[in-house]
């Protein structure tokens, strides 16, 4: 697997991707140890619902009780952002696996068999690509009713076409390779050829791509939450926490940054999470960009 060695060397060599890697690792740790970092208070039914400390609106500054303060509605920011990390990964992973799955199935069908099937599937992807993703997602979420589930459904629906196309492209390349021709010549059945020979070679870049889209998925999810199409109020979700802070951007005169903690924190979490993946992604794209010769 010299590919991997090469990749690894590239990654550590490039400071940017290294930073990205570090950021992601940190987030993974936060996600895994969320219950230890921000333990759920006793008698609190749903761990993903941020515990409230009173009901009134105005955010409260950091204190011993609330390390990062509370946001609108007295939701503990620290608890929110920590558990929000889990939400972020949850959304990203689910959406990505669904997307890739659909992508692989349709993509390989289209790419391998070509002809009418290919034409049909590609037209379908056209249909999806022809409609602005965010708004399509909104329509879907608005329909199914705002919730984490519907966000994931909506994003998967708008995300898969590009993957179907990607995989189709790769498959088209690979199927021309000699060994595929050969195994076909030996009379191997189509599914067998796809699974044994074509996919393994075509799927590699796709998986990379998918892992790197995670950032964008989370960003889009946050966008939907911000537009009020997100998780129920009080759910540990960065996008929604930003939405809470939305109306506390400007503090009272004389103290314009009064609510900085409510505004900055969730935004920064989103920013860094996405940044981590994008930095990594940028490096990966360089490495796997077929047009860039390796020296």
């Amino acid at each position, binding site marked *: 697997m010299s590919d991997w060695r090469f990749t690894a060397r590239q990654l550590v060599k490039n400071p940017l991707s290294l930073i990205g890697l570090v950021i992601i690792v940190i987030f993974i740790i936060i996600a895994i140890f969320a219950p230890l970092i921000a333990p759920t208070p006793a008698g609190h039914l749903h761990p993903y619902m941020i515990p409230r400390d009173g*009901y*009134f*609106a105005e955010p409260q500054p950091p204190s011993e009780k609330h390390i990062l303060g509370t946001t609108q509605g007295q939701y503990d920011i620290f608890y929110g952002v920590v558990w929000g990390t889990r939400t972020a990964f949850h959304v990203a992973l689910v959406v990505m696996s669904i997307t890739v799955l659909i992508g692989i199935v349709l993509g390989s069908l289209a790419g391998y068999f070509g002809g009418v099937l290919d034409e049909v599937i590609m037209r379908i992807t056209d249909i999806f690509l022809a409609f602005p993703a965010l708004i399509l997602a909104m329509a879907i979420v608005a329909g199914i009713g705002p919730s984490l589930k519907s966000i994931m459904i909506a994003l998967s629906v708008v995300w898969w076409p590009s993957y179907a196309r990607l995989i189709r492209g790769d498959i088209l390349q690979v199927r021309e390779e000699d060994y595929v021709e050969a195994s076909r010549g030996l009379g191997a059945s189509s599914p067998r050829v796809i699974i044994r020979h074509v996919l393994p070679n075509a799927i590699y870049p796709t998986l990379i791509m998918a892992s790197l889209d995670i950032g964008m998925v989370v960003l889009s999810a946050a966008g939907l939450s911000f537009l009020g199409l997100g998780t129920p*109020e*009080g759910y540990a979700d960065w996008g929604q926490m930003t939405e809470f802070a*939305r*109306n506390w951007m400007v503090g009272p*005169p*004389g103290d*314009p940054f009064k609510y900085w903690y409510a505004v900055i924190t969730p935004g920064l979490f989103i920013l860094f999470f996405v940044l981590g993946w994008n930095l990594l992604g940028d490096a990966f794209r360089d490495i796997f960009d077929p047009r860039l010769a390796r020296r």
Partner: protein
Amino acid sequence: MSKRIPKMGWIILAALLCVSLAILPACGGGGGTPIPYKNDGAFVQETIGGLNSLDPAWAYDTASGEQIQYMYDTLLYYDGNHTDQFVPMLATNWTVVNSTAIKFCIRDGVHFWNGDNVTAEDVEYSIERAMVQNRAGGPTWMFYMPLLDRMGSRSGGVVVINFSAIDNAVEVVDGNCVQFNFVRAFPETPFLQIMSNTWASIVDKDWCAAHGDWDGTANNGTGNSTMWTYYNNPPKSRSPLYKGAMGNGPWELDTWDAIAGYIRLTKNTGYWQGPAQFNTVTTKFVDEWTSRKSSLVHGDADLVYVPRNYIDQLASYTDLNAIKDLPELTVDAFFFNQNIGNSSTYIGSKALDGNGIPTNFFSDLNVRKGFNYAFDWDTYISDAMQGEATQVGSPVIDGLLYYNNATPKYSLNLTLAKYYLEHSGWGNLSSIGFEFTLCYNTGNIPRKTACEILAENLLAISENFIVNIQPITWDTFLDKIFTISGISDLPMFQIGWQADYPDPDNFVTPFQYSSGDFAAYTGYSNATVDALIDSARLETNPITRQADYYTLQQAYYNEAPGIMLVQPLGRRFFTKYIHGYYFNPVTPGMPGPLYDMYKSNP
């Protein structure tokens, strides 16, 4: 070449840094910073949402009503801040001919913007047009109720009344007067209130007919004598008035851009009471609070809608004229559903086994009382309403006729709550336990808070009282409450009512009448109450009427068909340059009596 760029980059960065450093202290002292005087002679307000239609007969939302109010006059209007005293407007005077007829005499020499005279025919046409249109979900039932003693022109979607009925209800008499004939006796004040509201605005008959609207006759100039039904419950765009206007009010329509989200009116110099103070009245629809706030403190807007949560953000602006504690004629309440739909997914096991509730769980009075005692109004008012609300004990709220503040109210009392729940018709609930889901419509934080308060207090009484809270979208909410079958799936729901006209009947009917707007979906019905409501509605003797409504208020306390929450207190944030505001709960929109107001720079 390649070296030059980072240099530039650094320079830019440094520059930005300096700028920001230089500015932050500058804007630091915002408190004292005065709000500049801008847009002389113009009134600019920024609010949320948008307009529905400019057609007086169609519009049933405050935003539209407000604009209509500026462009049209009614026959009479509320006097100052009273809700039961009136001043003549287009009518010089009115006389109660008998218990089934009121006559208005029309003022001479009043002109529409296009110069047409305002005549008795116009008045007749305006009201008849409203009744002919009678769009589904519109306000015109308020004409049908007194005049024809029915709620509308249709039943099962088909028109069932003849044109003559409408025609006879409103008649031009002795030249310049218009007489309204009731099929049954109807009290005067409520009718005058109805006639003072925007749906009773007077439009220009000729202009409308000329622009393709109904022409005032049954056949509408064709051979077909049922042609008028073409204008019954029409699509919005069938009338020229939905986006055009021809009234006689103090301001004329200049531009309405629904997409850009603003409407501008310009002064009608020929207004019969003399031209208004503001040359233009601009209403912008800006959903972003930060943006609205900035426009206000920069003087770009004279008035903005300030959500209750954010009033503190404006506290320290000395140049703002904050008017608070205005008792609005709206009320929010929990409704107990005494007859939950069998298909409901919100009541767990549908049985009283600790994991659910039976469909008729709330038909037990003690349960309802227990829940009432378990609600904490003080926390709700202080936290969810920022202290801007007063608890109400019955649908008849402060500001309505015959409001009785002696009516007892429930208050937080967990021991009493415990007592009632343990002595309910279902046996000792705290040992049996129950679980159900409490829904609120997504985004409505006060309602969410109310749910949470109730849930937590119940849990405090017994750990067997499990109330889950779930947000659902507005459409799902409606879908669950207002099922076609009429049987709601939600065990409890919160909803608010806003006054159409400040008469108690307008409130008791939706809350207490067995087939009322809301009560119909709660399975609550009480024959005596229904009878009382019916008689009180048409009672012409004020004394009897008052007695009836006092009884009804007491009845609500006894029966506890729901948890009456609060009557919110409104607030207005004007820049200090706006003068002459006074509050009348019935005036639609934030600015209030704009004609009596003016803007000046001290």
